[in-house]
């Protein structure tokens, strides 16, 4: 099987994010980059599928800048076989990224049987690339996947929707699967894995190589700013048991009469 995984590199969740000088993007100079957390589930599922299907290869694809290649190195160290990096800015829009990934997959010379992605990237939070890529490749997609089962070329997928309900999809490959937390437990890269990763093939492509140009931009961002700070609220000390009933009664009154939310 030809298994593909798409990964993105994003700022660490604990990183403080601030707008850059002219408000066109965020300040990226001091950011710690990590593999998008949802992509770890995608890599893990790809490796599990490979282990169950002898002769399979896992190719990991990333579009982004090369200042740090943490995400691709992590995926290779976890056990992916080869990597494709399409170099581009970190603020490409979803349409450009999907088109670039499609181009990267085509350049690999392999026809995908299954493509794994995270359900969303936690930087721009658009949740568009999986569905766009599937549409561009004329392939079905199932997103927010928390259950995966593969047998005889058929894949059964559980998609989580409102209230924790699950939609169970049955699909014949090829299919794109956008993974959610809960699908599996991603492995850590072992030391031998990290050493081996250095010798695995990495193909470098430019946006031009995959047919993406500035004309493909669909979404334009400006005025990056910090959200407005709230004025300080009211704070009550209720550690003392004697005061608790009084404090709670007051807060509930305020919720009704001042905030008008109850």
């Amino acid at each position: 099987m030809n298994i593909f995984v798409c990964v993105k590199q994003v700022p660490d969740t604990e990183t403080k994010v601030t707008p850059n000088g002219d408000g066109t993007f965020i300040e990226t100079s001091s950011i710690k980059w990590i593999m998008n957390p949802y992509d770890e589930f995608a890599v893990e599922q790809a490796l599990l599928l490979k282990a169950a299907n002898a002769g399979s290869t896992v190719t990991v694809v990333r579009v982004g800048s090369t200042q740090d290649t943490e995400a691709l190195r992590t995926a290779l160290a976890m056990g992916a076989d080869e990597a494709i990096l399409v170099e581009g800015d970190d603020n490409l829009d979803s349409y450009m990224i999907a088109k670039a990934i499609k181009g990267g997959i085509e350049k690999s010379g392999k026809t995908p049987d299954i493509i794994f992605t995270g359900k969303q990237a936690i930087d721009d939070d658009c949740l568009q690339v999986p569905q766009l890529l599937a549409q561009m490749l004329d392939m079905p997609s199932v997103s927010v996947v928390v259950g995966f089962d593969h047998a005889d070329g058929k894949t059964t997928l559980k998609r989580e929707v409102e209230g924790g309900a699950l939609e169970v999809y049955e699909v014949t490959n090829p299919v794109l699967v956008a993974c959610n937390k809960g699908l599996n437990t991603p492995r850590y890269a072992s030391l031998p894995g990290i050493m081996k990763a250095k010798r695995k093939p990495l193909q470098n492509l430019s946006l031009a190589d995959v047919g993406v140009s500035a004309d493909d931009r669909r979404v334009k961002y400006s005025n990056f700013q910090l959200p407005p700070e709230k004025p300080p609220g009211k704070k009550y000390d209720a550690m003392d048991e004697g005061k608790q009933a009084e404090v709670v009664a007051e807060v509930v009154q305020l919720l009704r009469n001042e905030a008008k939310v109850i």
Partner: protein
Amino acid sequence: MSKILVFTETTDDNVKSVTLEILGRLSGQEVDVACIGNLPEAGAKALAEHGAANIHKITGSGLEQYSPEGYSKALKSVIDNGGYDYVMAGSTSLGKDLLPRLAGSLDAGMASEVTNFTMDGGNFAGTRPLFAGKVLAKVEIQGPKPHFVTVRPNALGMPESANGAAGTVNEVSADVGEIKAAIKEIVKGASEKVDLTEANIIISGGRAMKNAENFKILEDCANVIGATVGASRAAVDSGFAPHAMQVGQTGKTVAPSLYIACGISGAIQHLAGMRTSKVIVAVNTDPDAPIFTKADYGIVGDLFQIVPLLTEEFKKMM
């Protein structure tokens, strides 16, 4: 003036309220609505009252249940004949999955999950949170039309007044052909309540809940005020609650009218997911917990004592 198609999802007896929030912002534009499958009478009435000129009610074989392929083909058939400048929908589970595919089938751009927007001169300009709400940015769309937009539920608020329109229902039959990824079964969730992303009131528990059983005190309180129960990442990672309940950067981003955080310290990634809540109440024993910097009403106290008191006090009021 622009011509806009709003896709609505329906409930058992109405349309989802995010649709009416969107319609409220489209006053002065030419607005049609599309739905797939059954449209409850109250829903059709609400759509007309909120300014829908035409309501395209699409049915056909393969549309009995949701599928990204089937629904996007069905809507494309309406869009192809409609000359729309924009297509909008709520950023729900279904909306988030469907609209990118539909936009892709038209090579068109899309702004995801905006929390505010204007239509000055018929042109869309939106505001959306990025990096889970750590920053906000202005978003505009370019390239082939129609342009696509999803709107976060509860973010715009319900319109105070509405300009009615005809609300003429057009029955449309669509032939969507073969669907490669189809639903064969739906497994109900543990909760029959409104989902976190659409909830008006949320009460969440953190690591201080200590175990899964203790979430019952939050459930009890939630039942009194019609809230949905959430959890912090710490509580989910400790196995106290399923991931479907997680609020924060790697969980759900929420914007309820009232958010009650119990035993949640307020890590950056949690604050990012709930900071746009209109009113925040925090209960924590640590007076220096970061959650208090975002709280409108902070109670420094033990949640196991405070939450039952809250429940009693709410009961008196309801």
